[in-house]
Every structure is written in C-alpha cells, then in structure tokens.
C-alpha cells in the first residue's frame, strides 16, 4: 500500500490483511453462512434495496458481501485514486471496469448463484473481496462478534454451510420445525 501515497494517507496505522480476521472473542469475521441445500423449489423475491461495496482507503468494504441473484450492487470509489474493479466469477460473466477517483457509482448484478466470486483491483494488488450470490435470502456474513442470524426459514431439513476464504467450507445438517429457534455453531480447527 505504501507504493500508492493516496492509499497510505487514508490510514493512520498499517493495514492488516483481511484474509483471516480473528475477533477478540475467538470468533472469525467475514465468514459467509448460508443454506446450501434443502429449500423448496421456489422463486424468492429479490430485494429492491441495493447492496453496496465501497473502495475506501484502497480496501474493499465490506470485505465479504452477500447478495441475492439479480440484486443490484452499487460499486463506489471513495478514494482520491483510480481503481479497477475486477470480479472473477466461474459461473457468472466476468467483467473488469475502471473507476476514476471519487467517480460515479456503478450498479451491477449477477444473475446466477455462485459461492464465491473473488474480486480484485487491477491497480492495487492487495485489494481483495468476495461476493456470494445466492437465489434465496437465507444467508449472513459474520462481523465483529462472529455471530450470524438467519431468519424466516421455512420448516425443513437443510445443509447449513459456513464458508471462509482461508479455512474453506464447513457443512452441518440441520432440521428446523415451524417457529423453532435453533443455535448452531461452527468451529474451525486449523
């Protein structure tokens, strides 16, 4: 980051990699948790609200973004420098677009389910993010307390998966009844 003064100036302290962020309570941040299989075959309504990913201080925020298929994603550049955002999907179409300093917001979407899509910046090689695209709303990304909540899940038996960019996927079979509140923890042992 020090090679680009505009990026370095945005931070008062050196930035650490976000590839494995351990919270103070021993939990992992930026883990994507989702219902991988078992849902009834139906069309889930796509939120009209836009999701967003920002380029700020030459970092992506959030580092892990989860959206539904065809949900609009606003891509912003808050930095006083050029960026070139480059998602690298295997199922969806790849694209690669530059964004001038504090340039206009781009709005994109991905039509097909894909977990995960790596995102890089062609200008700043340390910049990395991941976008999860799923066809339903039953997902969450862990934050500073490492917890997740998935609401409004129909009764059924499901594969619940946690996905972490460094530690990979962990699956659990779960069964929930109508009105159940269930607690499921994942533990990565590396």
């Amino acid at each position: 980051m020090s090679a680009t003064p505009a990026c370095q100036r945005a931070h008062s302290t050196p930035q650490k990699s976000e590839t494995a962020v351990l919270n103070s309570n021993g939990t992992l941040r930026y883990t994507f948790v989702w219902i991988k299989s078992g849902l009834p075959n139906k069309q889930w309504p796509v939120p009209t609200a836009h999701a967003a990913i920002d380029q700020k201080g030459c970092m992506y925020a959030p580092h892990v973004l989860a959206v539904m298929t065809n949900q609009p994603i606003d891509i912003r550049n808050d930095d006083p420098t050029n960026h070139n955002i480059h998602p690298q999907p295997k199922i969806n179409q790849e694209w690669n677009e530059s964004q001038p300093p504090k340039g206009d917001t781009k709005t994109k979407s991905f039509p097909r389910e894909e977990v995960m899509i790596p995102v890089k910046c062609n200008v700043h090689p340390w910049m990395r993010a991941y976008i999860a695209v799923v066809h339903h709303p039953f997902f969450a990304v862990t934050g500073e307390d490492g917890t997740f909540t998935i609401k409004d899940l129909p009764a059924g038996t499901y594969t619940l998966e946690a996905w972490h960019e460094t530690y990979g996927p962990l699956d659990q079979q779960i069964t929930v009844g109508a009105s159940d509140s269930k607690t499921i923890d994942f533990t990565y042992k590396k």
Partner: protein
Amino acid sequence: MTRLWISCGAVAALLLATVSDAATVTGKVVFSGAKPV
C-alpha cells in the same frame, strides 16, 4: 362495522400465523486453532 372488525382480525391472525411459522437459526463461527497472522 362488526364485519370490518372481523375481517381485520382474520387478516391479523393470518399475518401472525405466517410470521410465527418461520424458524430462526443463530450461531457463531469459532476458530480454535493457532491465531491467524
């Protein structure tokens, strides 16, 4: 008026039933290995 109240009550009951049928899954993701660098 009575019919209106009955209709409102039926809609409210239906909404409550719909909401309460849904399950919630909560949890946390724990890391038990060596502290990541």
